[in-house]
């Protein structure tokens, strides 16, 4: 069968493994921007994500007390992690240099008791485009320190190759700038990444606005998607989380099933042979 991808579904199922750990879902969810901690908790419950991203910031004792109180973000998130089996993925959001990102990652490891880190080093405040050089420098050091590094990066092939060669557990190119909801802005390049890095774990991170865009990423062969705003800013975040979950599952199933190759010429689905007016000419009915 001639299909768009040559994915050979493994007989043993379709388990996502990264750095030796099984990740329970291909939908990864951010925990920010929800109208309330309860709504965040409901969205996480509906998504049953593989990872939930979190961060860390300076806080007063009063702010910390609020976080861990019965209705606080951290308290509710902790409950959902326990019930869904999702893993925590701390990020280094807001860092602009390798030095900052390394220190924040170290603090995150202590605080959240995990080696996973979503490495984010911003190079441009307007587009929130990652800084490729600082990102590579930080990734090299964090991998050496035993972190499981998941870098948020651009879709540059050479950059992704370099990050993987350094030992990053996956690479996470953007679909579009963070929070824009523009979807997969450069599908050609994303397809190229999939084709040229067939063994790598690839995750579209950022820019997804609709479930159909997440589905497209999975159909393309991406292993997972990470998103936040599209769910958190929906009228009904829990319902949107459920919609993304279905889209991700559908996209993955389609990829594994083998998508047909696109072609320019029409081709009838129904056989014409055997029609009673086969080769009949003129005066049509």
């Amino acid at each position, binding site marked *: 069968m001639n299909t768009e991808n040559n994915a050979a579904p493994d007989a043993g199922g379709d388990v996502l493994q990264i750095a030796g750990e099984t990740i329970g879902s291909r939908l990864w969810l951010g925990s920010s921007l929800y109208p309330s901690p309860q709504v965040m908790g409901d969205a996480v419950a509906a998504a049953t994500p593989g990872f939930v991203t979190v961060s860390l910031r300076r806080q007063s004792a009063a702010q*910390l007390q609020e976080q861990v109180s019965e209705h606080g973000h*951290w308290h509710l998130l902790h409950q959902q992690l326990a019930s869904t089996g999702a893993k925590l993925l701390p990020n280094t959001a807001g860092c602009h240099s390798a030095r900052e990102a390394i220190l924040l990652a*170290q*603090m995150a490891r202590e*605080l959240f008791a995990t080696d996973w880190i979503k490495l984010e080093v911003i190079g441009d405040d307007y587009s929130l485009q990652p800084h490729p050089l600082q990102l590579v420098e930080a990734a090299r050091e964090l991998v050496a320190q035993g972190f499981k590094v998941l870098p948020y990066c651009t879709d540059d092939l050479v950059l992704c190759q370099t990050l993987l060669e350094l030992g990053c557990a996956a690479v996470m190119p953007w679909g579009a700038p963070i929070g824009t909801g523009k979807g997969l802005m450069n599908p050609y390049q994303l397809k190229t990444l999939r084709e040229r890095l067939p063994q790598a774990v690839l995750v579209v991170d950022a820019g997804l606005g609709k479930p159909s865009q997440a589905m497209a990423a999975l159909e393309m062969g991406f292993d997972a998607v990470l998103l936040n705003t599209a769910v958190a800013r929906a009228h009904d975040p829990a319902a949107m989380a459920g919609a993304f979950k279905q889209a991700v599952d559908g996209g993955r199933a389609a990829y594994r099933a083998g998508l047909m190759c696109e072609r320019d010429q029409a081709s009838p689905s129904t056989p014409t042979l055997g029609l009673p007016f086969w080769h009949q000419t003129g005066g049509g009915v």
Partner: protein
Amino acid sequence: MRLIINGESCDLPVSAGLSLYQLLQQLGYLQIRSEDAAVSGNFIVAVNQQIVSAALYAGTYLNEDDCIDILGAITGG
């Protein structure tokens, strides 16, 4: 003694000899409680950008102009 706590300059009515444990207690961090024991005490401290584990709070003495950062979990994307 002057300390920089979470980026803000603070003059404390103490001389030398203040431990990190005492400071955190004064600021209320050690009194944070939750019904869920797993999320209590969920903060991390760095002195002059060096992480200090909880076991070392009492034995870490602060000096004039030390920078103390106390970070906790927040939501993130």
